[in-house]
C-alpha cells in the first residue's frame, strides 16, 4: 500500500507541476502602482510660527522619508482666505510665466527636475494653490537620509491674520519610490499667524 500511496502522490505532484509551469498565467491589464512604501511625512516649516506685516516670510515644504529611495514627488498646498490675501507670494523665477517657488538646494545638481512649479491665486474662489512636482532622473533614484526640503515659498506679509492655515491636498500629494511604490503619507499642515 505504501508503494501505491507513493505513486499516487508522485502523480499528483507531477500534475501540479505541469499546471504550475505550463499552464498560462494571468497577467494584469496594465502596470499598476502598489501602495506599500513609507510612511513619509509632508510638512511645512518657517523660521517662526508668527510673522509681522512687511516681513518676507519663507515657508519651506519638506518631506521626511528616512531611508527611502525616491523617484517622484507631487504636492498641492491650498490656502483658503476670507476677505483678502494676507500675503503676496514672491516669484522665484522671473524668466518664467506666473509665480514659481524656489526649489531647494538640497536637490539641486542631484538629478531632480521640477516639471510642475506654480502658484495660482483664484481671487473669485479666494484660494491660493501651490502645485509642485519633482522627479529624480538618476538611474539609481535619490536616497533620503532623513528629510529634505522640496521648495520654499517666500511671502510678503501685507495684512494681519490670526491664522494662516496652509493645507496639503491629500488627493494631489504623492510620493513614489524608485521601485514604483507609492508611499503612505502623513500630511501636517502649516499653521502660522501674523501679529
Amino acid at each position: 500500500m505504501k508503494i501505491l500511496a507513493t505513486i499516487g502522490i508522485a502523480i499528483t505532484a507531477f500534475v501540479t507541476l505541469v499546471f504550475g509551469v505550463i499552464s498560462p498565467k494571468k497577467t494584469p491589464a496594465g502596470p499598476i502602482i502598489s501602495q506599500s512604501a513609507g510612511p513619509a511625512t509632508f510638512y511645512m516649516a518657517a523660521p517662526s510660527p508668527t510673522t509681522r506685516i512687511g516681513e518676507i516670510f519663507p515657508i519651506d515644504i519638506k518631506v521626511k522619508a528616512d531611508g527611502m529611495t525616491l523617484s517622484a514627488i507631487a504636492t498641492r498646498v491650498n490656502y483658503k482666505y476670507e476677505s483678502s490675501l494676507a500675503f503676496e507670494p514672491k516669484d522665484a523665477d522671473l524668466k518664467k510665466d506666473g509665480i514659481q517657488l524656489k526649489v531647494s538646494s538640497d536637490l539641486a545638481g542631484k538629478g531632480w527636475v521640477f516639471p510642475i512649479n506654480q502658484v495660482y491665486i483664484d481671487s473669485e474662489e479666494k484660494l491660493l494653490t501651490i502645485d509642485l512636482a519633482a522627479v529624480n532622473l538618476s538611474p539609481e533614484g535619490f536616497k533620503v537620509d532623513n528629510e529634505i526640503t522640496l521648495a520654499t515659498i517666500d511671502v510678503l506679509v501685507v495684512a494681519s491674520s490670526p491664522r494662516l492655515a496652509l493645507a496639503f491636498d491629500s488627493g494631489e500629494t504623492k510620493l513614489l519610490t524608485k521601485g514604483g511604490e507609492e508611499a503612505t503619507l502623513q500630511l501636517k499642515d502649516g499653521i502660522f499667524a501674523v501679529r
Partner: protein
Amino acid sequence: MTWRFFGYSIRSSLVKVFLLAVITLGLAFGIILVSQRQMFFKSAEEIAPKMVLLPGKASLRFKIRFQGVTSTAMDKKVAVTIKQAEVAVSGPTIIKVLSDANGLYLGEVVNIAPGTYDIYVKGEAHLRHKFPAVFLNEGINDFDLTGVVLKAGDFDENNQIDIRDVALINAQNTDLNVPITETNRIFDIDGNSAININDVAIVLSNYDSFDVKGD
C-alpha cells in the same frame, strides 16, 4: 472492491492506480491544450482583426502619429471607439497599427455603418484623442489623422498623465538603455527598442499640470 471498466473486471490495486493516473494525466494535458488554444485565438484576434469588408458597410483606414516616433518603429496597439452623439456605436476595438518609414502608423477598422462619427483613438501608453465629425462613406475611407500627435504617458490606462505614470516610467529608467521585453515595451515611447532618459523626457514634457487628461 472490483471496478468495471469497458466490460473488464479490475481487482488489482496497481492497475486501478495506473488507470487513475492515465485518466488524470489525460485530463490535465487536455485542459492545457484547450488553454493554449484559447490564448492563440485571443492573440490571433488582436493581430488580425476581421478585415473582410461587408457590402453596404464602411471601412475606416487611418494614419496616426505617436509622440516621439519619427522613423520605423515597433508595432503598437490602439483602441478605436466610434461614437455618435457621445454614444459608442463601435468599440473600443483593439487593433494593431503598423509603422511606416516615417514613424506614422497605419490601421483599419471595418464594417461600420456609413455615417458621421466622432472617432476616439487611444494608444496603450497614450492619451485618447477625439477626431470629430468624420464622415464615412460606404466602402474604404482613408483618413490622415497625423495632424495631431497622440500624447505619451498614460501607463495605467486611466486616460490621464499624473505623477504615478511618471513614476512608472521612471522605475524603468535604471540604466542608460534598458532593453525592452514583452512586459516593459509600452515604456519605449520613441520606439527605438530601448527605454532611456529620452522616453522619460517625452512623458515629462506632457506632465505640466496636475490635470493632464485625454479626450
